């Protein structure tokens, strides 16, 4: 079952994106031909084998890396630098927070560049910290918090910025399983409350099925879209029942199979995908 393409103008369009890293001997092709779009309000996950160029793709979408050919557009406008309507949560949140600033100042800092008044910045930062369950720690330094709490601060910083699209690059790769489950639920909650569009990159198949409404499977590098699967699980999910549902296992199995094939597919195989649904 293919994810349905909405007719309404999609929020984010990745149009035949190609990325070649220049090297003296001609260049390394990291992303060959990626083509997909994300409608407003969707929570889409991107999974792929390790080394599939997931981070490259995300940086291209975020306007942090120049694209070789093709285009990325957000709200109908081509992305050439970091767009205003986008926030990125990086893989290692501990390293993306500024250790010389308090948690509160970290969350407020992007709002300064957005030109908000001091009161407005403070209000938004407090709201965002509240939304991620960190009311008490505004005055602490980030490094005084646990890894999981640092991820929450990075998420708070992103949502205080009030983006239309939230890009997340394996944000929970470095936390323990229990914290990870809590953070996954936090993402679902924030997504449902704020109606923000989320593009969530992960290498964890279970996580992609649990979180997403749609999973885009990438091939091995040089990368193409290997499969695009709609996740038809109910919107209300919880770690126990959702993960034990038969449908969860089916979807998980299908994605697992695609990942296995992806490991051998270097963007050459034609993309004909058996329908497991």
């Amino acid at each position, binding site marked *: 079952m293919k994810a349905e393409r909405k007719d309404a103008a999609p929020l984010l369009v990745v149009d035949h994106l190609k990325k070649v890293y220049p090297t003296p001997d001609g260049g390394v092709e990291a992303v060959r031909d990626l083509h997909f779009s994300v409608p407003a309000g969707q929570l889409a996950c991107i999974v792929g084998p390790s080394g599939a160029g997931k981070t490259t793709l995300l*940086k291209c979408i*975020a*306007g*942090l890396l120049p694209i070789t050919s093709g285009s990325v557009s957000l709200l109908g406008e081509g992305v050439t*630098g*970091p767009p*205003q309507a*986008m*926030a*990125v949560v*990086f*893989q*290692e949140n501990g*390293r*993306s927070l*500024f*250790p*010389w*600033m308090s948690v509160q100042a970290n969350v407020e*800092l*992007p709002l*300064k*560049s*957005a030109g908000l008044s001091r009161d407005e910045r403070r209000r938004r930062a407090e709201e965002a910290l509240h939304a991620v369950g960190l009311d008490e720690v505004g005055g602490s*330094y980030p*490094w*005084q918090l646990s890894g999981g709490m640092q991820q929450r601060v990075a998420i708070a910083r992103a949502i205080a*910025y009030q983006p239309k699209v939230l890009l997340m690059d394996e944000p929970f790769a470095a936390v323990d399983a229990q914290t990870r489950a809590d953070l996954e639920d936090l993402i679902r909650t924030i997504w449902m409350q704020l109606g923000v569009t989320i593009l969530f990159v992960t290498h964890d198949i279970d996580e992609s099925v649990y979180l997403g409404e749609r999973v885009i499977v990438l091939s091995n590098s040089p990368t193409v879209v290997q499969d695009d699967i709609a996740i038809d699980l109910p919107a209300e999910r919880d770690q126990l029942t959702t993960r034990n549902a038969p449908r969860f296992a089916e979807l998980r199995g299908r994605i697992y199979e695609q990942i296995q094939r992806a490991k051998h597919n270097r963007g050459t195989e034609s993309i004909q995908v058996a329908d497991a649904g």
Partner: protein
Amino acid sequence: MRALTILKNAAFILALPLLLILLWWLGTLGGTNFYVPTPLQLIVTFFQTWFGERMVEDVLPSIGRLFAGIALTIAIGIAVGVVIGLFRPLRRVLEPLLEFFRAVPPPVLVPLLMLIIGVNDQMKVTVIVSGAVWPVLLNTVEGVRGTDQIMRDTARSYRMTRTQQLLHLVLPAASPQILTGVRQSLPIALILMVISEMFGSSTGLGLSILQFQRNFAIPEMWSGILVLGLIGFGLSIAFRIVERRILRWYHGLREVQREG
């Protein structure tokens, strides 16, 4: 309990100096070596020599030039270091040249600067800066260059302006390195303060010590050395206090990383 800890710390700090002074005193008991004053003699001379006219005419102007030199050293070192650290082509062009200038022993610049600038305060401050600026400058370059890539991406993705990136990312990220450079440059500045006053000068600590030595005013000469030692010691204490304040986050972070 707290008072006891303070007492204990004080004992640790003072034990060795007191022991050395005791040995020195014992050593001067027997005879009278013309070149080595007794501790008591030195202390008396110290107060007689420096707490009076000389304080205003020699010590304070020297300290003033030292501070001016240090302030300029820090300002120039950081400003130039940030510019070089941020622009890779500039760095590649300038780095060999900087290594060369850094390798030139600053005292040899004194005769040259005397000719160009003349014998005045500007010349002395220039001598101090010309030697002390390198550790600050080169450490700033390294610190700026080493700014974490993920933090830079974060700043860019949140569309922080160049000024904001400089104030909230580049300078704080480089601050541990910058302060390492400042700590290295403080003793250099003190040495050059003395040397700059030993050539064709009419006032200053360096000149005074030289004159005492030439007139065989040995206890006075020793007391001048004591003044210099105390200035150096004061500088390093002041630096420690400032550094603790600016790098509170850094020491905390390091401690957490060591534990984890």
